């Protein structure tokens, strides 16, 4: 297998400094919904200026370069051990080049490692094997701490919200999570919702669902309808960009279902800030492609 450390470094640079076009387009479209001269509109204008500046200068869109979450789909025969080493080497170099802020802090001893490596779990790497004739695909998501902190997990039924174990209950708890988040997750945000699983798998799935493009709807029309409805209703709450008040609070909602134990019914809501950094690298032999 070839060494792709440099390609992973380039993936990190692109992810940190160049917001995906589909996200940028959504942000651009939302400007017109906000009143001229309003703080909401001013916030969106600043956000768009920042997106252009970061892309032009290869500087981080947000100083919180987040938790690096890698999904590596590797062809049969590739070494996951070597891939992990290459990801970690790329992360150290990306930090040195200021594409990434040193973000790995030992939680017990309060010490920042300074190079974005921390134990076996930082950065987070998920491996999935594919057939030997398939390309190597690496997806990277950088998820900032501010929005991660406003994520929420509900165990249904929830008496306070009168939310039962059905889609009507799911709707209620997701709206509650958006109201509680206010502007603190750097609205306008994107919601990743997972229904089912255990506490751990459910949260992981709520992030995985966010790798899809903006506007991608669940195949089940019933779920797709709920996705659309949640985005619309979340925006009726008037929280607005940065919580300044306004019409743009949530840009998109993505829902996925899992299997659950008869006893459990979890709804996990991952909130992604407007700086929705996710990029992909595809390696086919000598050919390298970035999205």
């Amino acid at each position: 297998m070839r060494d792709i450390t440099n390609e992973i470094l380039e993936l990190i640079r692109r992810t940190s400094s160049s917001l995906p076009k589909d996200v940028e387009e959504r942000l651009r479209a939302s400007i017109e919904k906000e009143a001229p001269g309003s703080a909401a509109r001013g916030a969106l204008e600043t956000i768009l200026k920042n997106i252009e500046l970061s892309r032009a200068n290869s500087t981080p869109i947000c100083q919180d370069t987040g938790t690096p979450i890698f999904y590596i789909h590797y062809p049969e025969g590739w070494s996951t051990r070597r891939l992990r080493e290459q990801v970690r080497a790329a992360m150290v170099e990306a930090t040195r080049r200021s594409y990434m802020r040193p973000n790995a802090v030992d939680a017990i001893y309060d010490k920042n490692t300074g190079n974005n490596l921390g134990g076996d779990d930082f950065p987070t790497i998920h491996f999935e094997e594919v057939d030997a004739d398939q390309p190597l695909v690496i997806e990277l998501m950088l998820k900032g701490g501010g929005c991660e902190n406003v994520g929420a997990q509900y165990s249904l039924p929830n008496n306070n919200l009168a939310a039962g174990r059905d889609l009507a209950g799911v709707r209620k708890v997701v709206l509650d999570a958006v109201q509680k988040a206010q502007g603190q997750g750097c609205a306008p945000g994107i919601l990743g919702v997972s229904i089912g699983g255990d506490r751990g798998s459910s949260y992981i799935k709520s992030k995985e669902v966010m790798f899809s493009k903006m506007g991608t709807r669940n195949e089940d029309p019933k779920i797709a309808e709920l996705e659309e409805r949640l985005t619309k209703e979340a925006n009726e709450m008037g929280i607005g960009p940065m919580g300044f008040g306004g019409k743009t609070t949530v840009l998109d909602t993505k829902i996925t279902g899992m299997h659950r134990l008869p006893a459990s019914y979890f709804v996990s809501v991952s909130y992604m800030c407007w700086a929705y950094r996710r990029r992909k690298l595809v390696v086919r032999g000598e050919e390298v492609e970035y999205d």
Partner: protein
Amino acid sequence: MVKKGYAMHEITIPISEETILSLHVGEPVELSGVMITGRDAVHKWLSETFIKRTREPRGDDLHVYEALKKYLDQGVLYHCGPVVSGIDTKQYKFVAAGPTTSTREEPYQADVMKHFNIRGVIGKGGMGPKTLKGCTETPGVDFHAIGGAASFLAQTVQRVVGVYKLEEFGVPEAMWVIEVKKFPVVVTMDAHGESQHKAIDDESRKVLDDLLQMP
């Protein structure tokens, strides 16, 4: 919630009591002068070592404290964990420097503001009732910068004057002394007891209650 027609205030740090009392929720401000960054580790350290005094000063604590007093008196504290280049060479440059979520400092902020006579804190997401009370008592305000606009905001940083506790706290948590020019913010909590965050929270709660009644 900047209402139309508000004129931009251009304010130089240090900020007088009179100037801070002239500010109201919703008003846009451009700040120039020397400010200092401080977030979670800084607030905890300041509170435990110098305000509640549950921990003895150690290492360079007292020296840093004396320096901080100078910068924070009528000064501005920025909740920010920047990306800084030149760490190896000490030729520091701010690369990305947007605000972090302020509410984590809610347990400490009012006491820290009063202790150092801080005129403004900059962050995002707003703060709670304890800080709002601190704003009226100090007096000071909570300024809101645009979260995530890190490359844009770093461009207002003219130079890095110095840094404290870099080794101990790490790059994001260290206290960076920076000179800024026209750093753009909006007043979201003022020295007259008004909070834009509380207003939006209350209004959105009412809408949520209505939505929860719907099937």
